[in-house]
């Protein structure tokens, strides 16, 4: 019976665990609270594992489907399902949640239960976004997941957290309202909120354009694409370490995923029409944001900008309309999940010890934290796209696909080889290399066992995917082929063809 409800379990186990943590845990029972949260996260991870083991790689459509009436009056269903694109992202989500819980183990001392519960619930809600096949259900998850994130930044965040949270909330809300309008319009056309039905509805070109732009506003903010990216650096800087991890590792991917689920397949003709525009925005993200990252003085801001730049490859890969580009984009999403998590975790390790994120406050950390620095160099190399790490795979695929699309697009995209390495390794040089800069650095202690394990696991994934990326593309192959096939068929009314 349970095997038919893997997706439901994936969503509700962490949410339920969050409720339990809230009910039983508090600041007086610290250990209990932490362990409850950890068990919740482990359980949340374990229930998603069958998604991989029982997934039929050859099947392109939705698997593990569940459907039940939710609000019959409006034909709204509790309808779940996962395909080759969502399964790896769901696994990434439940994995990241466990990382977040362990990363916050000793760091958070106030309102632990609430904090842990936020992450557990966020995990369930995000998995809900990845698996919803009913647009209203999707919308509810999409909006609901903002709340715990809002709380995490707003309560446990840095000094400027109010500005950051309001900015974060308004930016994302503004986008999603237009998406709701699009959903209601599509409901009027089809009489249903079923996403699969939207994929096959015939739409005139102007309507497609409007729908695409409505979705674009919602998803571009989330990814984030230039020029609606300025909320991300602020949110990252103010967020606690685990908040940054989940934001970078999973939340940004919701935008990318949603382009593939809604904007592109519902409005394929508009998508083709606007491809040049989307590619231009992606290239701006890759080059412009990399240059901005170069001059950041705050490590978290630097990594935040680096995230935007790397997400540029995701959107670029989508709009090349080739399997290599599309799968490259998906691999890039997964890989960025691990690498950005690790990068933020590394900043967190330093911040917990020195309470500063300013590059200028550091220097020569490698002298006092050699093991940690070895990890940092590994992740920095992964962030610079070194072959053998996961960071290489997606960028390599997208750049190769881009050459076929247009040489100059690839030319600009490939500058990441230079600038990505520049901003990452320049930071490494200033923070980790050199002689010990001050007494605080001299007093640093190397990794604790907990931190070591976290970084080691992330390192294993980073290298594992780099050496054998097929583990991801096996999942995405059939689905992305079907997706591209779908994209190649016009949905204009017959007269318009």
């Amino acid at each position, binding site marked *: 019976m349970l095997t038919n409800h893997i997706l439901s379990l994936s969503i509700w186990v962490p949410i339920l665990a969050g409720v339990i943590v809230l009910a039983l845990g508090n600041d007086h029972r610290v250990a209990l609270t932490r362990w409850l949260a950890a068990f919740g996260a482990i359980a949340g991870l374990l229930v998603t594992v069958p998604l991989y083991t029982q997934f039929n790689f050859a099947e392109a459509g939705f698997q593990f489907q569940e459907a039940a009436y939710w609000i019959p009056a409006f034909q709204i269903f509790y309808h779940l399902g996962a395909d080759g694109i969502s399964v790896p992202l769901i696994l990434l989500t439940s994995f990241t949640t466990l990382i977040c819980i362990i990363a916050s183990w000793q760091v958070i001392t106030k309102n632990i239960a609430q904090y842990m519960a936020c992450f557990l619930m966020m995990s369930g809600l995000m998995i809900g976004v990845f698996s919803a096949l009913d647009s209203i259900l999707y919308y509810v998850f999409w909006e609901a997941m903002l709340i715990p994130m809002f709380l995490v930044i707003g309560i446990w965040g840095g000094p400027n957290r109010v500005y950051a949270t309001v*900015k974060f909330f*308004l*930016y994302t809300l503004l986008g999603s309202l237009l998406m709701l309008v699009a959903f209601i319009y599509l409901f009027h056309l089809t009489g249903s909120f079923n996403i699969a039905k939207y994929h096959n509805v015939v739409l005139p070109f102007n309507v497609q354009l409007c729908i695409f732009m409505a979705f674009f506003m919602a998803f571009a903010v989330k990814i984030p694409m230039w*020029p609606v990216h*300025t*909320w991300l650096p602020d949110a990252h800087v103010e967020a606690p370490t685990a908040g940054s991890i989940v934001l970078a590792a999973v939340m940004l991917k919701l935008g990318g995923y949603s382009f593939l689920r809604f904007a592109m397949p519902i409005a394929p003709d508009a998508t083709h029409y606007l491809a040049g525009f989307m590619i231009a925005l992606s290239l701006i993200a890759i080059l*412009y944001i990399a*240059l*901005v*990252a*170069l*001059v*950041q003085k705050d490590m978290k801001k630097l990594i935040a900008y680096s995230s935007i730049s790397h997400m540029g490859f995701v959107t670029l890969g989508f709009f090349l309309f*080739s*399997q*290599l580009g599309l*799968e*490259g984009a998906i691999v890039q999403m997964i890989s960025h999940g691990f690498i950005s998590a690790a990068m933020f975790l590394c900043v967190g390790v330093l911040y917990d010890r020195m309470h500063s994120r300013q590059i200028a406050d550091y220097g*020569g950390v*490698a*002298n006092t934290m050699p093991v940690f620095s070895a990890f940092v*160099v590994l992740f920095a*190399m992964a962030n*610079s796209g*070194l*072959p*053998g790490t996961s960071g*290489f*795979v997606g960028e*390599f*695929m997208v*750049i*190769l696909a*881009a*050459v*076929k699309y247009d*040489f*100059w697009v*690839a*030319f600009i995209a*490939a*500058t990441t*080889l*230079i*600038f990505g*390495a*520049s901003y990452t*390794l*320049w930071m490494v*040089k200033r923070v980790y*290399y*050199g*002689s010990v800069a001050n007494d605080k650095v001299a007093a640093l202690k190397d990794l604790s066992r907990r931190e070591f394990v976290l970084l080691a696991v992330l390192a294993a994934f980073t290298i594992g995917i780099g*050496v*054998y*990326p*097929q583990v991801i*593309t096996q999942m995405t*192959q059939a689905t992305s*082929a079907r997706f591209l096939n779908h994209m190649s068929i016009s949905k204009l009314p017959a007269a318009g063809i």
Partner: protein
Amino acid sequence: MMIKQFLIWIPLLPLIASAIVGLFGSRLPRSAAHWLTILGVAGAFILSAFVFKATLAGFIHNANLYTWLVSGDIRFSVGFLIDNLTAMMMVVVTFVSLMVHIYTIGYMHEDSGYSRFFSYISLFTFAMLMLVMSNNFMQLFFGWEAVGLVSYLLIGFWYTRPTAIYANLKAFLVNRVGDFGFLLGIGLVLAYTGSLDYAEVFKAAPTLSETTISLFANTPWSLMTVSCILLFVGAMGKSAQVPLHVWLPDSMEGPTPISALIHAATMVTAGIFMVARMSPLFEMSTTALSFVMTIGAITALFMGLLGVIQNDIKRVVAYSTLSQLGYMTVALGASAYSVAIFHLMTHAFFKALLFLGAGSVIMGMHHDQDIRNMGNLKQYFPVTWITSLIGSLALIGTPFFAGFYSKDSIIEVVKFSHIPGSGFAYFAVIAGVFITAFYSFRLYFMVFHGAEKWREVRPHAHDDHLHHGLKPDQDPHEPGWVVKLPLILLAIPSLLIGYIAIQPMLFGDFFRGVIVINAELHPAMEHLAHHFHDVLHTPSGMAIHGLLTLPFALAILGVATAWLFYMKRPDIPAVIQQRLSLLNRVLENKYGFDHFNEVFFAGGSRFIGNKLWQIVDLQLIDGAIVNGTAKLIGKLSSVVRQLQSGMIYHYAFAMIIGAFLLLTFFTKIFN
């Protein structure tokens, strides 16, 4: 067959050793660090020797190990292509690596990063083997970047030194500029042939000879020319060709063993290897070959000149490496791929020898690297002295020495080449002979002969905290056998390998089927073979004939000039420096490349980044649009708020007016 099974172990042995030492090095005794890695590399060397023996007997192997990735109809694999070219590279790489491993026991003896160092150089051996053994572009790129990574780690090995961490960042980024072109070249190859497998690409290439692409407006460009130049940009980064050479001199900040292994013998020759491997592609574009030759000629000549004014023992050898890499590149441009590879091999031996010799001197001099503080070291370093002399003689192309055969062949083949740029290239390689002989023997005389200059008491010489140096009353001591043995083992091939290998490698069947030459368009290599068979007949004949030719005369002249300037009349160089102060300044500034890059590229990127951030992100998007919207709403609401006065009669008044307006409105409509 047996060989196929153990192929995988050749790169794997060094990798495993590196991983064990790297992960557990701090818990293992020091001797475990070097024994494990030496065993790994020695195993790889012995297996490579077996493979080489097999390929000499005709064994060729091309198979995939595993599928890395499948996307659509494109398959990326990891696999090996083993032929004579690969096998020879494997032997050279593992042999030099083994020598350097042994040598390191002595050189890094007192260093706290002992096991880390061994882990890195074994990792390097793995990466370099993956590079040369690859059967496809993807794996080539993997090895390409992985050797770059290890180079980065090793240049910055002493990570507390500001110069070292500046140099390693610079090396990585400059290499990345090359890789940027390389990746685009690979992208074009994939886009037009649909595969990254060497065999399939080479098979598909001839059908693309007429294909053009339009890059600017509608001007058609030959696809092969563009692809080959882009691929070569990668080689320019890795093999340090002008203008991407700037990282190599600075890379001398790394410990000397890796300067020998990575920055002289193996990694920097990866670009040469790559172009030779791609000969079926490069042969399709004379334009690309001209480009290659010109870049090589510029590097050979102008980088050699810089070697003349260096006073750091390692930097002299480094500029010499740059210049010799230029020679190899010139040979590639002349379609003499086999000659380039031949010079790569001889150079690997004698340049590794010269570097390790320099390292031996540096150790004996207590890490003083300034040749102006040396002199008469032949007294104290007999083995280093003789082996360095052999290395220097090989480098300047003395007949019968290894370097003679390879370098003379390059000069000859450039003479036979008639592609655009070959005239300049011939001048460059001929002039380079004199320059090479001059700086090599300047170094040799200053280090091994003359007065013992460290004995002079200099007030400021010992202030530099990095270079301790000898005290005037101390005698230098030659290091022990772990240092001397590699010198001797490298001196043997530096003497003999040219004599042995020239006939099969250049004029025999060694590279048949591996290197493809379009003899109709690029007949230089054919002329060279005719010349050898008709005039020279044998290697000895070539050497004897070599005694009477212009290059050897120039080499003798170079040595004589060095002797005059630095032994007989040491006052001359200062006078020349004064007379030619402008030229001297140009050379001291290394033609201004560093300064230009620092200001224009590094500074420019930071400037643009800052402007984009401050003006577009913060002022425009955040300031004007995001917060501007918030402010606008705030302002509007502060105006609207005035209406909410809280006075009951205001509301009553508004209600009456409202009701009146509504009534008027509706009566108008319904009437």
